[in-house]
């Protein structure tokens, strides 16, 4: 709702930040979190409810983001912020490309050059700006939801 009512009102050229993608990536990168897939599916359904884009397209994009987050989290575990930037960067491009491909295949005339310059790159920049605050927020939330067990 915040995405629809507030974030979508602030555009850079024709691109918006995708707050849900960024928060999902940050959540999936937390080592204690095991529920990222479920959240990706739920997010896809809720966003699909709001948007004209079919919910499977949205859910597939978010699922790819979660998959990349878990892959990078295992490999770049000592540099979580780097992983966050990487997931945000690739996740934004992939979800935007999925949307572009779906619309092009269903008959909407879109110029890739325009889409890249006016939507994808500005959206990427906005998502990268939100990446660090989102990661910090999700890290604190993960610590609160999954407190570490003290071992004696």
């Amino acid at each position, binding site marked *: 709702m915040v995405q629809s*009512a507030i974030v*979508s009102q602030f555009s850079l050229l024709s691109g*918006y930040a995708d707050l849900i993608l960024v928060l999902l990536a940050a959540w999936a990168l937390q080592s204690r979190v095991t529920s990222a897939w479920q959240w990706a599916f739920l997010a896809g359904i809720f966003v699909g409810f*709001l948007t*004209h*884009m079919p919910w499977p397209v949205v859910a597939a994009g978010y699922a790819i983001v979660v998959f990349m987050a878990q892959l990078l989290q295992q490999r770049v575990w000592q540099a979580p912020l780097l992983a966050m930037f990487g997931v945000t960067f690739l996740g934004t491009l992939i979800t935007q490309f999925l949307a572009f491909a779906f619309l092009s295949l269903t008959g909407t*005339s879109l110029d890739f050059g*325009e889409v890249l310059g006016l939507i994808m790159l500005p959206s990427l920049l906005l998502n990268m700006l939100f990446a660090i605050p989102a990661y910090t927020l999700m890290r604190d939330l993960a610590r609160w939801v999954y407190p570490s067990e003290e071992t004696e």
Partner: protein
Amino acid sequence: MKVPSSRSLQTTIIFLVIGGILALALGGFFSSASNQFTSSLVDVQTWISSRYRGFQDFFTAPRDIVTLRTRNAELESQVSQLQAQVIELQQRVSETEILAALVDFSRSNPESTYKAAAVIGRDPSPFLDYIIINRGSNDDIRRGMPVVTNQGLVGRVDAVIADAARVQLITDPASVVNVRLQNAETDALLLGSVTGDISLDLISQNVTVEPGDLVLTSGLGGGYPPDLILGQAVTIRTLEYELFQQATVQPAVDFTRLEIVLVITNFRPVDITPLVPETTP
């Protein structure tokens, strides 16, 4: 002869002196002296009064400061509440102005019935230009109903639930509207784009289109009622080797500031696909 006593002589002299002084005073001869005397009296009085006040404040100040602080806090709280009320009232004034403009519009177009709706969100996807309004099937909103403001056509209802609906704007890349150019008296298509700009296509090469030509819905195709304002033609592109002319359009509606819209509820879009002849290969 009786000689007056010294005592009565003294008394007489004193009276005479006093009477003389009074006469001189009443005559104004002593005004400067009396002014100086009274001003010095006033200075002394002021000094005594200020000292007393200071003495009094010394004993009553603690009680007054607490009272003043409490009162100050109360007033600050009241100021905050009033500021919040002012902001709320300013928003209401702005909404009232918008609604007044929409009421004027609906009165000047009595052939249609309207339902006002507030814009509560936008499509989260940057590829799509849709808005979400707070009226749905419970308010007799149906899919395909046109959406307007007092400035012109906004779009049409794309999806409906009980209490909300999604509206496709005319700036959406997938939006196509059959239009008529008022001055040129020709039909064309209005297309949206990913940038949010709208343009005309399929303008016959035999027609002269001037910048500023008004673009209205033609009613062809049954998707929109006729004669709804969309905008004005701005730049016209005419190339001899192309089949049609194109033009960019300045929209009549400011899509970045949509707050309240009107849904035309007595218009039902017509599905003409059964009438379209099938092309056999």
